[in-house]
């Protein structure tokens, strides 16, 4: 007797019980709760920066320090907006609009591009503000009296090292994502 594979497959498995709608909705909400939590953390970080550097705008004596602090506030909002924009990839519920390969590669390529271009949208916006504050610090007689020049160079070096570290780690992440994209391409594309 010859068996029909399609029939055998469709007749296989346990009896199916549809999950309760309430259960499905709770599960679906988890996805949005995660996004809301991430957004809240970003907004909280923005508020901390606004309070800290907003205070500097009024307290610091030198005009360059004031402009630099104001610049950092604007840069923080810009970076938060970029994080929000670049972070909101296609959610799984939109995946019905596109085939498998497009959906997955789109998700990963989006993350990879964000990491690759981290200098332009995450590091560069802060540099003018920091530079202005540092120049302003150099012109501030109080600062010159209390903070030795070598310590200011150490501060500048630490800031530059931190930015370089952020850039390097993100490039590593981008390379890892690129390898995953190539892996999927290889898994998916033949013929």
């Amino acid at each position, binding site marked *: 007797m010859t068996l029909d594979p399609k029939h055998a497959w469709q007749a*296989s498995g346990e009896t199916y019980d549809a999950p309760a709608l309430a259960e499905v909705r709770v599960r679906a909400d988890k996805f949005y709760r995660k996004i809301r939590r991430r957004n809240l953390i970003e907004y909280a970080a923005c508020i901390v920066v606004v309070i800290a550097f907003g205070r500097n705008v009024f307290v610091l004596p030198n005009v360059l320090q004031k402009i630099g602090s104001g610049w950092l506030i604007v840069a923080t909002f810009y970076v938060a907006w970029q994080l929000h924009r670049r972070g909101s990839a296609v959610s799984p519920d939109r995946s019905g609009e596109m085939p*498998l390969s497009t959906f997955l590669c789109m998700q990963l390529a989006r993350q990879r591009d964000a990491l690759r271009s981290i200098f332009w949208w995450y590091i560069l916006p802060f540099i003018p503000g920091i530079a202005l504050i540092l120049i302003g610090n150099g012109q501030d007689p109080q600062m010159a009296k209390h903070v030795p020049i070598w310590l200011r160079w150490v501060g500048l070096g630490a800031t530059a090292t931190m930015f370089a570290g952020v850039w390097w780690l993100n490039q590593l992440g981008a390379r890892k994502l690129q390898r995953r994209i190539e892996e999927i391409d290889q898994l998916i594309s033949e013929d």
Partner: protein
Amino acid sequence: MSSDSRAQNAQYVAAARDHGAMIERLARGYEADPELRRDLVQEIHAALWRSFAIYEGQCAERSWVHRIAHNVAVAHMINGRRGRRMPLVGLDEIVELPAGGDTERETGERGLAKRLLAAIHMLKPADRQVMLLYLEDLTAAEIGEVTGLSAGAVAVRIHRLKALLAQPYNAEEKQA
């Protein structure tokens, strides 16, 4: 509750009723571990429910459900595969249906289904998709719509699949 959410709920409930068993079978094709599989099924249902908020007949409902289910399952498979690197193969590399674990002696439809599942677990995503969709009785055109593979690529895979399924799969048949 707004009329939009009521419509979304109604569409989801109808789709879960019509395609629920297919989703269970599909999840078995992507995840062998029962605990992780339950999680995957829930993930697919959650994505499906959310998806009906934006579904406006962009494609046939059946294709829509298959796309959501496969996309969620393949994402699950790729994330899971980072930990366990079992090499996956193409349809052309499988010469006959493998034995389905301890059930080598099992015959009839149950035995065949287990062998099909064992073969599915060995396959790369594109071939796995085509095999699952073929077994769910989708046409070549529908398979192309769901997967995004070209008509030629779908035809080649279906040809290989038919050849594989035409192989005698148990000892009695081989002897006959």
